[in-house]
């Protein structure tokens, strides 16, 4: 990898340990992917929940945070993904004091490094949406795929250690989706139906994601006639990135780099794979349980936008969630403040639901809180969440927000289980 004089100084430790760590991480990853040099990035989004960090990860952050100024400070605007513990609700959820302590220590370290604790995975909707062609370092699969695909920004999946390196140095290795050649479509899917609600968009994303062979695939979707909303794109992209582990899709006539098939395929257009509504329905049905027991309903993964919170509040207004079922919605601190002001939090909580701020369900010790509360059967309208939680000991199923709320009120899974 070709490094500038300044980058070589950082690598040699002349600007302190923090910058040296950053350049070492950039060089190791860049070399692995044959990067020729680095690219300066405009902003960083960093994922570092305490479950993923563990004690050793938090100790590492504290080590960086103890370094003197200016070496320890981030050099570009840097924001955080959801945390693992909502300190106002952790005891009620069965999280432990040691989990909260780890959270408090990690947060203190990030503040010392100069991170803005936005604690959100929907930064592309709520904080500072990137623009077409802007190079960024985003650290959540959902935020990365939305920034790349819908906003036309350029990022790889920058996991915590590398997003941190990017924040400390202002750089990322130039490979993958920073480069034009990796943004060309590699496979084509054609749909002839319009997904009805958010869970349907997620299921479609899951279907496409399951077909992805590796990170380097770029699926192209044709046949979408009505422009999806931001929340529909969010659910589609989050599920696609979760099932497929790919950070970019194009939607013909809709996303900014895909005005038509010719542009997106660069003369090598593959044969279209048709996706019928029945194909997507079959994916949803594969998660159907054999009985009607229900423990918990979760709206998260990604955190809910203000519009989604409003819809949830309207579904719940004047109703009561069954005493056998818990209902949880997670959103960002900024959206939570807005919901408090607008009476949406009150509507959800009066019905018996919980609104959590700055966390996301799968990032908050999902296995431990499931065991602490006896939660096994889980319903969500997020295909991403359903995909993740099987490995955490849950029996997750996917349904629309409306159906999820109805089942939470009834205390059991209603409707066709066949």
């Amino acid at each position, binding site marked *: 990898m070709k490094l500038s004089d300044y980058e070589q100084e950082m690598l040699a430790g002349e600007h302190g340990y923090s910058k040296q760590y950053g350049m070492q991480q950039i060089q190791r990853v860049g070399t692995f992917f044959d990067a020729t040099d680095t690219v300066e990035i405009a902003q960083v989004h960093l994922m570092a929940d305490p479950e993923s960090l*563990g004690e050793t990860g938090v100790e590492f952050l504290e080590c960086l945070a103890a370094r003197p100024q200016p070496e320890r400070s981030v050099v570009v605007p840097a924001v955080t993904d959801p945390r693992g513990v909502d300190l106002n609700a952790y005891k009620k959820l069965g999280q432990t004091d040691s989990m909260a302590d780890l959270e408090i220590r990690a947060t203190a370290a990030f503040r010392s490094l100069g991170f803005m604790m936005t604690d959100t995975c929907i930064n592309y909707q709520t904080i500072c949406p990137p623009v077409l062609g802007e190079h960024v370092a985003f650290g959540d699969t959902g935020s990365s795929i939305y920034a790349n695909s819908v906003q036309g920004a350029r990022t790889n*999946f920058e*996991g915590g250690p590398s997003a941190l390196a990017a924040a400390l140095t202002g750089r990322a290795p130039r490979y*993958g989706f920073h480069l034009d050649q990796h943004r060309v479509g590699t496979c084509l899917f054609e749909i002839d139906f319009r997904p009805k609600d958010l869970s349907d968009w997620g299921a479609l994303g899951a279907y496409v994601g399951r077909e992805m062979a590796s990170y380097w695939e770029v699926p192209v979707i044709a046949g979408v006639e009505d422009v999806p909303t931001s929340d529909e794109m969010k659910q589609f992209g989050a599920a696609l990135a979760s099932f497929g582990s790919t950070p970019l899709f194009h939607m013909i006539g809709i996303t900014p780099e895909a005005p038509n098939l010719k542009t997106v395929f660069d003369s090598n257009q593959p044969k279209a794979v048709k996706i019928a509504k029945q194909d997507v329905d079959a994916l949803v049905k594969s998660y159907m349980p054999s009985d009607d027991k229900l423990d918990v309903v979760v709206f998260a993964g990604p955190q809910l936008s203000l519009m989604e919170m409003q819809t949830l509040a309207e579904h719940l207004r004047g109703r009561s969630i069954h005493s056998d079922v818990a209902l949880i919605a997670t959103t960002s601190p900024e959206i939570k403040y807005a919901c408090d002001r607008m009476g949406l939090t009150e509507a959800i909580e009066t019905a018996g639901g919980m609104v959590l701020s700055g966390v996301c369900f799968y990032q908050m010790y999902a296995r431990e809180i499931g065991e602490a509360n006896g939660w096994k059967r889980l319903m969500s309208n997020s295909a991403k969440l359903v*995909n993740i939680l099987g490995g955490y*000991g849950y029996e997750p199923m996917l349904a629309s927000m409306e159906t999820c709320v109805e089942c939470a009120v009834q205390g059991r899974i209603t409707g066709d289980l066949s």
Partner: protein
Amino acid sequence: MTKVFIGHPGIGDIVTGEALVASDNFSARYDLDRINGVFSRPQHKLCGQSYDGKILVLNAAKGGVATAWMLQEMVSRGIAPKALILNFANPIMAQGAAFANLPMIDRFEVDITESVPNGAEVHVDPAAGEIRLL
């Protein structure tokens, strides 16, 4: 029978151990019970099997970004694979391996999950991008 397989130069130090092989994909968050050191995702072919101290040979890196931190967390607790051998890594797996200094190689000339027998003793040389059956 071929005994040496060449991939892209990887990350980490030379290591030798027993291969645990499946054609499935890999994510630390989605697939593992990291407390007990076993695969826990019901749909995974290795569900219930211990990965501790094994040379994991799997198809592609999948799932989210948590693996980038989790590999180091697993190594620090002493319940971790010895090396990751994949047909296709992704940035998250590379970032995690670089942070944890966990040996990893990918991009072989063959399907590595069909080339290394389950349970075989293997020698992994990341700098050379080479796996050798012992």
